[in-house]
């Protein structure tokens, strides 16, 4: 569970930045290399590479080497993991508040 929280922290850190969220959105449309992304976002290539490194560390993107280029793709699994964590609490509170209601209404 601690590992999941750490992974969630890394995911939230990664998506706390609007440019990184935009990069993820762009990559959902299809794989791209750092040069394409730099052009799309009118950012310097080193700046884009830095964002990609944060996303890769959070395992939100994976890269594959194609010739001399690295191609970046979205990995949806960590996002689903964080969503699952929140879903657990959502379910807990919904069920608990129903129990509270039944308890207090004597049903």
């Amino acid at each position, binding site marked *: *569970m601690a590992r999941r*929280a750490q992974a969630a922290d890394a995911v939230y850190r990664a998506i*706390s930045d609007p440019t990184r969220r935009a990069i993820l*959105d762009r990559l*959902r449309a299809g794989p791209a290399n750092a040069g394409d992304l730099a052009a799309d976002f009118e950012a310097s290539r080193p700046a884009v590479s830095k964002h990609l490194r944060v996303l890769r560390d959070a395992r939100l993107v994976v890269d594959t080497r194609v010739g001399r280029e690295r191609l970046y793709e979205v990995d949806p699994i960590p996002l689903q993991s964080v969503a699952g964590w929140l879903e657990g609490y*959502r379910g807990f509170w919904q069920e608990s*508040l129903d129990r509270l*209601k039944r308890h*207090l209404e004597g049903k």
Partner: protein
Amino acid sequence: MSTMASTSSARAVWDFTEGFVLATVEIEATPERVFQAISSEEVCQWWVRAGVFDTREWKADLRVGGKWSASGVARGNPYTIEGEFLEVVPPRKLVQTWRTVGAPGPAGAMTTVSYVLEATDKGTRVTLRHWGFQARPATEGNGLGWETSFQKLEEVLG
């Protein structure tokens, strides 16, 4: 109150980008009665998720800065949740920090739960917010469709 249509069941949603859970329910009981149930050992009667989570013991020093803890069994493993009261305003509001020790949930991660109780013609509307499921404050959305990929916060109070 008994002549009115029964209030509906609880609803809860989560918001991924902001990292919180929002839940609401209307209960045919006074705010005073509800406040007692959320701030006493009565918690053991309802902090339960069948087959997952069963609260058996509750201790609390009910004042701002006072500690609370709840322990029980989750999927066969003992666990404790503990924290501190940040706001104690009977019968309207209770805010407490929440840290899980052992399963379920992230060990060590500090989150916060708030209950707001409002009197209605049927009894009491409870609005619960559980937040802090993220390391940093979320920044503004960028309008590029990120939010649409996940369950959005629904209007649950309307």
